[in-house]
Protein backbone atom coordinates (compact mmCIF):
# COMPACT_ATOMS: atom_id res chain seq x y z
CA UNK A 1 0.00 0.00 0.00
CA UNK A 2 2.82 2.36 0.91
CA UNK A 3 4.52 1.51 -2.40
CA UNK A 4 1.30 2.08 -4.37
CA UNK A 5 0.79 5.41 -2.64
CA UNK A 6 4.33 6.46 -3.62
CA UNK A 7 3.69 5.32 -7.18
CA UNK A 8 0.49 7.37 -7.37
CA UNK A 9 2.08 10.42 -5.66
CA UNK A 10 -0.93 10.41 -3.35
CA UNK A 11 0.85 11.38 -0.14
CA UNK A 12 -1.11 8.80 1.83
CA UNK A 13 0.61 7.59 5.00
CA UNK A 14 0.35 3.93 5.95
CA UNK A 15 0.34 2.83 9.60
CA UNK A 16 1.01 -0.80 10.39
CA UNK A 17 0.67 -2.32 13.85
CA UNK A 18 2.35 -5.60 14.63
CA UNK A 19 3.00 -7.62 17.74
CA UNK A 20 6.42 -8.47 19.13
CA UNK A 21 5.89 -12.23 18.90
CA UNK A 22 5.14 -12.03 15.20
CA UNK A 23 8.56 -10.49 14.59
CA UNK A 24 9.66 -14.12 14.73
CA UNK A 25 8.07 -14.60 11.27
CA UNK A 26 10.53 -14.38 8.40
CA UNK A 27 8.14 -12.41 6.24
CA UNK A 28 8.30 -9.43 8.63
CA UNK A 29 11.97 -9.03 7.76
CA UNK A 30 11.34 -9.49 4.04
CA UNK A 31 8.86 -6.63 4.29
CA UNK A 32 11.27 -4.58 6.42
CA UNK A 33 13.94 -4.95 3.72
CA UNK A 34 11.48 -3.93 1.00
CA UNK A 35 10.29 -0.88 2.99
CA UNK A 36 13.74 0.55 3.40
CA UNK A 37 14.98 -0.51 -0.07
CA UNK A 38 12.11 1.39 -1.70
CA UNK A 39 12.57 4.31 0.75
CA UNK A 40 8.99 4.12 2.01
CA UNK A 41 9.05 7.14 4.34
CA UNK A 42 5.24 7.14 4.19
CA UNK A 43 5.24 3.91 6.22
CA UNK A 44 5.11 3.94 10.01
CA UNK A 45 5.35 0.62 11.81
CA UNK A 46 4.21 0.40 15.42
CA UNK A 47 5.45 -2.61 17.37
CA UNK A 48 3.30 -3.54 20.37
CA UNK A 49 6.07 -4.80 22.61
CA UNK A 50 4.33 -6.46 25.59
CA UNK A 51 6.76 -9.41 25.62
CA UNK A 52 3.97 -11.98 25.68
CA UNK A 53 2.94 -14.51 23.06
CA UNK A 54 0.71 -17.59 23.24
CA UNK A 55 3.35 -19.93 24.65
CA UNK A 56 4.71 -17.44 27.17
CA UNK A 57 7.27 -14.64 27.33
CA UNK A 58 8.71 -13.63 23.95
CA UNK A 59 12.28 -13.64 25.25
CA UNK A 60 11.79 -17.18 26.56
CA UNK A 61 9.87 -18.66 23.60
CA UNK A 62 12.13 -17.21 20.88
CA UNK A 63 13.90 -13.99 21.67
CA UNK A 64 13.61 -11.26 19.08
CA UNK A 65 15.62 -8.72 21.09
CA UNK A 66 17.06 -6.20 20.55
CA UNK A 67 14.09 -5.04 18.46
CA UNK A 68 15.27 -1.46 17.97
CA UNK A 69 18.74 -2.42 16.75
CA UNK A 70 17.26 -4.95 14.35
CA UNK A 71 15.01 -2.37 12.70
CA UNK A 72 17.80 0.22 12.71
CA UNK A 73 20.06 -2.20 10.89
CA UNK A 74 17.24 -2.86 8.42
CA UNK A 75 17.29 0.85 7.56
CA UNK A 76 14.44 2.16 9.75
CA UNK A 77 14.29 5.31 11.83
CA UNK A 78 13.56 3.90 15.29
CA UNK A 79 11.68 5.59 18.14
CA UNK A 80 11.33 3.86 21.51
CA UNK A 81 8.35 4.94 23.61
CA UNK A 82 6.17 3.99 26.58
CA UNK A 83 3.10 2.71 24.73
CA UNK A 84 0.78 3.83 27.55
CA UNK A 85 1.88 7.47 27.48
CA UNK A 86 -0.32 9.42 25.06
CA UNK A 87 2.11 12.35 24.81
CA UNK A 88 4.93 10.04 23.80
CA UNK A 89 2.65 8.34 21.26
CA UNK A 90 1.64 11.65 19.64
CA UNK A 91 5.20 12.97 19.61
CA UNK A 92 6.48 9.77 18.01
CA UNK A 93 3.78 9.81 15.31
CA UNK A 94 4.54 13.47 14.56
CA UNK A 95 8.25 12.80 14.39
CA UNK A 96 7.68 9.88 12.01
CA UNK A 97 5.97 12.27 9.58
CA UNK A 98 9.15 14.34 9.32
CA UNK A 99 11.46 11.41 8.52
CA UNK A 100 12.59 11.42 4.89
CA UNK A 101 13.95 8.60 2.75
CA UNK A 102 13.29 5.74 5.15
CA UNK A 103 10.43 4.10 7.05
CA UNK A 104 9.91 4.57 10.79
CA UNK A 105 9.44 1.93 13.48
CA UNK A 106 7.91 3.01 16.78
CA UNK A 107 8.69 0.41 19.43
CA UNK A 108 5.94 0.84 22.01
CA UNK A 109 6.68 -0.85 25.33
CA UNK A 110 3.33 -1.99 26.70
CA UNK A 111 1.76 -4.19 29.38
CA UNK A 112 -0.79 -6.70 28.14
CA UNK A 113 -4.14 -6.28 29.87
CA UNK A 114 -3.02 -3.08 31.63
CA UNK A 115 -5.53 -1.77 34.14
CA UNK A 116 -7.29 -5.08 34.72
CA UNK A 117 -5.77 -6.79 37.77
CA UNK A 118 -6.44 -10.38 36.70
CA UNK A 119 -5.32 -9.82 33.09
CA UNK A 120 -2.13 -7.77 33.50
CA UNK A 121 0.96 -9.52 32.12
CA UNK A 122 -0.80 -12.90 31.85
CA UNK A 123 0.07 -14.72 28.60
CA UNK A 124 -3.12 -16.77 28.85
CA UNK A 125 -5.10 -13.65 27.83
CA UNK A 126 -3.23 -13.41 24.54
CA UNK A 127 -5.86 -15.20 22.53
CA UNK A 128 -9.10 -15.64 24.41
CA UNK A 129 -12.19 -13.56 25.05
CA UNK A 130 -13.40 -12.89 28.61
CA UNK A 131 -16.55 -14.62 29.87
CA UNK A 132 -19.52 -12.36 30.71
CA UNK A 133 -18.60 -12.22 34.40
CA UNK A 134 -14.94 -11.51 33.67
CA UNK A 135 -15.95 -8.81 31.20
CA UNK A 136 -18.09 -7.08 33.86
CA UNK A 137 -15.26 -7.21 36.41
CA UNK A 138 -12.73 -5.90 33.88
CA UNK A 139 -14.96 -3.00 32.82
CA UNK A 140 -15.57 -2.04 36.48
CA UNK A 141 -11.81 -1.89 37.08
CA UNK A 142 -11.22 0.16 33.91
CA UNK A 143 -13.99 2.62 34.75
Amino acid at each position, binding site marked *: *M*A*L*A*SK*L*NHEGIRVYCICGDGELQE*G*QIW*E*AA*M*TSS*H*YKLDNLCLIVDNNNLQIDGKVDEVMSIYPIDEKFRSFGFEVINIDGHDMNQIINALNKAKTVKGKPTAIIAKTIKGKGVSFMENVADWHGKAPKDEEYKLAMEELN
Partner: protein
Amino acid sequence: MNLEITKATRQSYGEKLAELGEKNKDIVVLDADLSGATKTSIFAKKFPERFFDMGISEQDMMSTAAGLATFEKIPFASSFAMFACGRTYDQIRNSIAYPNLNVKICASHAGVTVGEDGATHQMIEDLGIMRGMPNMVVMCTSDDLQTKWAVEEISKIKEPVYLRLCRYATPLIYDETQKFEFGKGIQIGEGTDATIFATGVTVSEAIKAKEELEKKGINIRVIDIHTIKPIDEELIIKCAKETKKLISIEDHNIIGGLRNCYF
Protein backbone atom coordinates in the same frame (compact mmCIF):
# COMPACT_ATOMS: atom_id res chain seq x y z
CA MET B 1 -0.01 -30.00 -38.10
CA ASN B 2 3.53 -28.62 -38.37
CA LEU B 3 5.02 -28.72 -34.90
CA GLU B 4 8.57 -27.87 -35.94
CA ILE B 5 8.75 -24.21 -34.92
CA THR B 6 9.01 -23.72 -31.17
CA LYS B 7 8.89 -21.02 -28.50
CA ALA B 8 8.67 -21.10 -24.69
CA THR B 9 5.42 -19.81 -23.19
CA ARG B 10 7.42 -17.77 -20.65
CA GLN B 11 8.92 -15.86 -23.60
CA SER B 12 5.44 -15.19 -25.03
CA TYR B 13 4.34 -14.01 -21.57
CA GLY B 14 7.22 -11.54 -21.26
CA GLU B 15 6.66 -10.12 -24.73
CA LYS B 16 2.92 -9.68 -24.26
CA LEU B 17 3.30 -8.15 -20.81
CA ALA B 18 5.65 -5.50 -22.17
CA GLU B 19 3.17 -4.78 -24.99
CA LEU B 20 0.24 -4.46 -22.55
CA GLY B 21 2.29 -2.16 -20.32
CA GLU B 22 2.25 0.37 -23.14
CA LYS B 23 -1.56 0.53 -23.25
CA ASN B 24 -2.38 -0.02 -19.60
CA LYS B 25 -0.50 2.19 -17.16
CA ASP B 26 -2.05 0.41 -14.16
CA ILE B 27 -0.03 -2.72 -14.88
CA VAL B 28 2.86 -3.13 -12.45
CA VAL B 29 5.24 -6.09 -12.42
CA LEU B 30 7.01 -7.77 -9.53
CA ASP B 31 9.67 -10.44 -9.66
CA ALA B 32 11.83 -12.25 -7.13
CA ASP B 33 15.31 -12.15 -8.62
CA LEU B 34 14.37 -14.26 -11.64
CA SER B 35 13.27 -11.63 -14.15
CA GLY B 36 15.73 -12.84 -16.78
CA ALA B 37 14.22 -16.33 -16.64
CA THR B 38 10.55 -15.42 -16.19
CA LYS B 39 10.97 -12.80 -18.95
CA THR B 40 9.51 -9.97 -16.91
CA SER B 41 12.87 -8.35 -17.72
CA ILE B 42 11.37 -7.24 -21.06
CA PHE B 43 8.76 -5.17 -19.17
CA ALA B 44 11.39 -4.01 -16.65
CA LYS B 45 13.56 -2.59 -19.43
CA LYS B 46 10.66 -0.68 -20.97
CA PHE B 47 8.98 0.50 -17.77
CA PRO B 48 11.54 0.53 -14.94
CA GLU B 49 9.31 2.80 -12.80
CA ARG B 50 6.57 0.15 -12.81
CA PHE B 51 8.81 -2.83 -12.20
CA PHE B 52 9.76 -3.95 -8.69
CA ASP B 53 12.44 -6.49 -8.06
CA MET B 54 11.63 -7.84 -4.60
CA GLY B 55 14.79 -9.88 -4.27
CA ILE B 56 14.52 -13.48 -3.13
CA SER B 57 11.49 -12.66 -0.96
CA GLU B 58 8.54 -14.37 -2.58
CA GLN B 59 6.28 -14.09 0.46
CA ASP B 60 6.73 -10.35 0.59
CA MET B 61 6.33 -10.18 -3.19
CA MET B 62 2.83 -11.67 -2.92
CA SER B 63 1.84 -9.43 -0.01
CA THR B 64 3.19 -6.36 -1.82
CA ALA B 65 1.26 -7.36 -4.94
CA ALA B 66 -1.88 -7.61 -2.79
CA GLY B 67 -1.22 -4.12 -1.39
CA LEU B 68 -0.75 -2.68 -4.89
CA ALA B 69 -4.04 -4.28 -5.99
CA THR B 70 -5.89 -2.48 -3.18
CA PHE B 71 -4.81 0.76 -4.90
CA GLU B 72 -6.34 -0.31 -8.24
CA LYS B 73 -3.03 -1.37 -9.74
CA ILE B 74 -2.91 -4.58 -11.80
CA PRO B 75 0.09 -6.42 -10.37
CA PHE B 76 1.70 -9.30 -12.26
CA ALA B 77 3.94 -11.23 -9.86
CA SER B 78 6.33 -13.74 -11.35
CA SER B 79 8.77 -16.36 -10.21
CA PHE B 80 9.33 -20.04 -10.84
CA ALA B 81 6.19 -22.07 -10.06
CA MET B 82 7.86 -23.77 -7.11
CA PHE B 83 8.52 -20.45 -5.37
CA ALA B 84 5.56 -18.48 -6.74
CA CYS B 85 3.05 -20.80 -5.10
CA GLY B 86 5.04 -23.30 -3.05
CA ARG B 87 6.78 -20.83 -0.81
CA THR B 88 3.87 -18.41 -0.66
CA TYR B 89 0.80 -20.51 0.06
CA ASP B 90 -0.14 -18.53 3.19
CA GLN B 91 0.30 -15.10 1.59
CA ILE B 92 -1.67 -16.05 -1.54
CA ARG B 93 -4.48 -17.66 0.45
CA ASN B 94 -4.96 -14.97 3.05
CA SER B 95 -3.87 -11.79 1.24
CA ILE B 96 -4.92 -12.48 -2.37
CA ALA B 97 -7.45 -15.31 -2.74
CA TYR B 98 -9.76 -14.75 0.24
CA PRO B 99 -10.00 -10.96 -0.22
CA ASN B 100 -10.39 -11.62 -3.99
CA LEU B 101 -7.70 -9.17 -5.02
CA ASN B 102 -6.75 -8.49 -8.60
CA VAL B 103 -3.28 -10.10 -8.57
CA LYS B 104 -1.89 -12.11 -11.49
CA ILE B 105 0.51 -14.81 -10.39
CA CYS B 106 2.38 -15.84 -13.50
CA ALA B 107 4.68 -18.74 -12.76
CA SER B 108 7.26 -20.07 -15.15
CA HIS B 109 9.37 -23.25 -14.98
CA ALA B 110 6.43 -25.42 -13.90
CA GLY B 111 6.38 -29.20 -14.06
CA VAL B 112 9.06 -31.88 -14.49
CA THR B 113 9.89 -30.37 -17.88
CA VAL B 114 11.98 -27.77 -16.03
CA GLY B 115 14.53 -30.56 -16.39
CA GLU B 116 18.02 -30.30 -15.00
CA ASP B 117 17.12 -27.81 -12.27
CA GLY B 118 16.08 -30.95 -10.42
CA ALA B 119 13.40 -32.08 -8.01
CA THR B 120 13.61 -28.95 -5.83
CA HIS B 121 12.45 -26.88 -8.83
CA GLN B 122 10.14 -29.36 -10.55
CA MET B 123 6.79 -28.05 -9.33
CA ILE B 124 4.19 -30.76 -9.85
CA GLU B 125 1.71 -29.77 -7.14
CA ASP B 126 0.91 -26.18 -8.15
CA LEU B 127 -2.34 -26.82 -10.01
CA GLY B 128 -3.73 -28.70 -7.01
CA ILE B 129 -2.69 -25.93 -4.63
CA MET B 130 -4.03 -23.11 -6.75
CA ARG B 131 -7.29 -24.82 -7.78
CA GLY B 132 -8.13 -25.13 -4.10
CA MET B 133 -7.79 -21.38 -3.52
CA PRO B 134 -11.13 -19.54 -3.35
CA ASN B 135 -11.75 -17.04 -6.19
CA MET B 136 -8.58 -18.10 -8.00
CA VAL B 137 -8.75 -18.50 -11.78
CA VAL B 138 -6.24 -21.10 -12.98
CA MET B 139 -4.82 -21.18 -16.50
CA CYS B 140 -2.09 -23.11 -18.26
CA THR B 141 -1.28 -22.27 -21.85
CA SER B 142 0.09 -24.46 -24.59
CA ASP B 143 1.68 -22.18 -27.17
CA ASP B 144 2.75 -18.67 -28.13
CA LEU B 145 -0.52 -17.30 -29.49
CA GLN B 146 -2.60 -18.84 -26.72
CA THR B 147 -0.30 -17.44 -24.03
CA LYS B 148 -0.44 -13.95 -25.51
CA TRP B 149 -4.23 -14.15 -25.69
CA ALA B 150 -4.38 -15.38 -22.06
CA VAL B 151 -2.11 -12.63 -20.72
CA GLU B 152 -4.32 -9.98 -22.30
CA GLU B 153 -7.48 -11.76 -21.13
CA ILE B 154 -6.37 -12.00 -17.50
CA SER B 155 -5.33 -8.34 -17.46
CA LYS B 156 -9.01 -7.54 -18.08
CA ILE B 157 -10.61 -9.86 -15.49
CA LYS B 158 -10.76 -8.33 -12.02
CA GLU B 159 -9.93 -11.51 -10.13
CA PRO B 160 -6.86 -13.30 -8.85
CA VAL B 161 -5.31 -15.52 -11.51
CA TYR B 162 -2.66 -18.21 -11.54
CA LEU B 163 -1.06 -18.67 -14.96
CA ARG B 164 1.24 -21.66 -15.37
CA LEU B 165 4.08 -21.26 -17.85
CA CYS B 166 6.86 -23.48 -19.11
CA ARG B 167 10.61 -23.22 -19.35
CA TYR B 168 11.28 -25.05 -22.61
CA ALA B 169 10.35 -24.09 -26.11
CA THR B 170 7.31 -26.02 -27.31
CA PRO B 171 5.67 -26.14 -30.75
CA LEU B 172 3.49 -23.37 -32.14
CA ILE B 173 0.14 -25.13 -32.32
CA TYR B 174 -2.26 -22.40 -33.37
CA ASP B 175 -2.40 -19.77 -36.08
CA GLU B 176 -4.24 -16.45 -36.24
CA THR B 177 -7.47 -18.15 -37.32
CA GLN B 178 -7.82 -19.92 -33.94
CA LYS B 179 -10.42 -18.46 -31.60
CA PHE B 180 -9.75 -18.64 -27.87
CA GLU B 181 -12.51 -18.33 -25.34
CA PHE B 182 -12.02 -18.04 -21.59
CA GLY B 183 -13.25 -21.19 -19.82
CA LYS B 184 -13.67 -23.12 -23.07
CA GLY B 185 -11.40 -26.01 -24.04
CA ILE B 186 -10.25 -26.46 -27.64
CA GLN B 187 -11.13 -29.67 -29.43
CA ILE B 188 -8.54 -30.94 -31.90
CA GLY B 189 -9.90 -33.78 -34.05
CA GLU B 190 -13.17 -35.66 -34.03
CA GLY B 191 -11.96 -39.17 -33.15
CA THR B 192 -14.23 -41.27 -30.96
CA ASP B 193 -11.85 -44.02 -29.80
CA ALA B 194 -10.58 -41.85 -26.95
CA THR B 195 -10.21 -38.31 -25.67
CA ILE B 196 -6.86 -37.06 -24.46
CA PHE B 197 -7.13 -34.07 -22.13
CA ALA B 198 -3.96 -32.02 -22.08
CA THR B 199 -2.82 -28.62 -20.85
CA GLY B 200 0.30 -26.54 -21.38
CA VAL B 201 3.34 -28.46 -22.60
CA THR B 202 1.43 -31.74 -22.91
CA VAL B 203 -0.90 -30.48 -25.66
CA SER B 204 1.66 -30.74 -28.46
CA GLU B 205 2.71 -34.17 -27.15
CA ALA B 206 -0.92 -35.28 -27.24
CA ILE B 207 -1.24 -34.04 -30.83
CA LYS B 208 1.86 -36.04 -31.79
CA ALA B 209 0.31 -39.11 -30.15
CA LYS B 210 -2.93 -38.51 -32.03
CA GLU B 211 -1.07 -38.41 -35.37
CA GLU B 212 0.88 -41.59 -34.55
CA LEU B 213 -2.29 -43.41 -33.53
CA GLU B 214 -4.07 -42.37 -36.73
CA LYS B 215 -1.46 -44.32 -38.71
CA LYS B 216 -2.53 -47.40 -36.75
CA GLY B 217 -6.19 -46.79 -37.41
CA ILE B 218 -6.98 -45.46 -33.93
CA ASN B 219 -8.83 -42.17 -34.05
CA ILE B 220 -8.73 -39.97 -31.00
CA ARG B 221 -9.34 -36.34 -30.19
CA VAL B 222 -7.26 -33.96 -28.10
CA ILE B 223 -8.76 -31.38 -25.78
CA ASP B 224 -6.56 -28.43 -24.91
CA ILE B 225 -7.69 -27.25 -21.49
CA HIS B 226 -6.12 -23.78 -21.18
CA THR B 227 -8.58 -22.67 -18.50
CA ILE B 228 -8.33 -25.19 -15.68
CA LYS B 229 -10.55 -23.27 -13.29
CA PRO B 230 -13.33 -22.68 -14.17
CA ILE B 231 -13.17 -25.99 -16.06
CA ASP B 232 -15.16 -26.59 -19.26
CA GLU B 233 -17.66 -29.10 -17.85
CA GLU B 234 -19.82 -29.07 -20.95
CA LEU B 235 -16.98 -30.19 -23.22
CA ILE B 236 -15.81 -32.88 -20.78
CA ILE B 237 -19.32 -34.36 -20.59
CA LYS B 238 -19.66 -34.21 -24.38
CA CYS B 239 -16.36 -36.11 -24.79
CA ALA B 240 -17.35 -38.65 -22.15
CA LYS B 241 -20.52 -39.37 -24.15
CA GLU B 242 -18.90 -39.40 -27.58
CA THR B 243 -15.65 -41.29 -26.93
CA LYS B 244 -14.82 -44.65 -25.42
CA LYS B 245 -12.01 -43.55 -23.11
CA LEU B 246 -10.90 -40.42 -21.29
CA ILE B 247 -7.16 -40.01 -20.81
CA SER B 248 -5.19 -37.15 -19.30
CA ILE B 249 -1.53 -36.35 -19.94
CA GLU B 250 -0.02 -34.44 -17.06
CA ASP B 251 3.14 -32.53 -16.36
CA HIS B 252 1.89 -32.58 -12.78
CA ASN B 253 1.01 -35.00 -10.02
CA ILE B 254 -2.18 -36.87 -10.94
CA ILE B 255 -3.48 -35.90 -7.49
CA GLY B 256 -4.69 -32.34 -7.93
CA GLY B 257 -3.87 -32.37 -11.64
CA LEU B 258 -5.97 -32.24 -14.79
CA ARG B 259 -7.45 -35.71 -14.27
CA ASN B 260 -8.77 -34.58 -10.92
CA CYS B 261 -10.79 -31.90 -12.69
CA TYR B 262 -13.08 -34.48 -14.30
CA PHE B 263 -12.60 -37.72 -12.38
